[in-house]
């Protein structure tokens, strides 16, 4: 089986990884700074941004998040290539 992915898969995925990284960093920061309004605003902004990026990614490359809509009526895409350790 040829499991080559287009270069775009990697660049789009890294955009998501970067957005989610900002979300995670702000999560840990807010866990110890729970009243920082500016950090909360930035957290919400990047959470929305990440959701948009993931939606676009899934349209192009199949489900990224468990529970996302399956693109085909007859073929279960979630359990197909690629798993994160295979790319």
């Amino acid at each position, binding site marked *: 089986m040829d499991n080559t992915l287009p270069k775009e898969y990697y660049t789009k995925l890294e955009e998501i990884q970067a957005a989610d990284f900002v979300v995670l960093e702000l999560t840990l920061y807010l866990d110890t700074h729970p009243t920082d309004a500016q*950090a909360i605003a930035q957290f919400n902004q*990047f959470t929305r941004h990440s959701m948009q990026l993931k939606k676009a990614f899934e349209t192009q490359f199949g489900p990224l998040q468990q529970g996302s809509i399956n693109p085909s009526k007859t073929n279960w895409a979630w359990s197909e290539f690629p798993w994160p350790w295979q790319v």
Partner: protein
Amino acid sequence: MNSQQPFQSVRTYIPPRSPFDPCPPIGRKFYSTPPHLFLGVQPPDLPQFSPAEALRKGTLWKVFADYYENPYRKGGKPRHG
């Protein structure tokens, strides 16, 4: 403690030496003292990296960035292949 002056995040010491130590002296031993050891509770509004850069550095805030390189390799031959 809030330290604004630049600090060296790698420190060194010279291990004590006896005339009967079999290996040639390593010279200096190195250890890390990363910036979080000097910050205390993080103050608000510290300068951030861009999202792409933050991912690459492993931290959103510039103050925590601490690039690590094998300190024994500088200018010399690697100790291990």
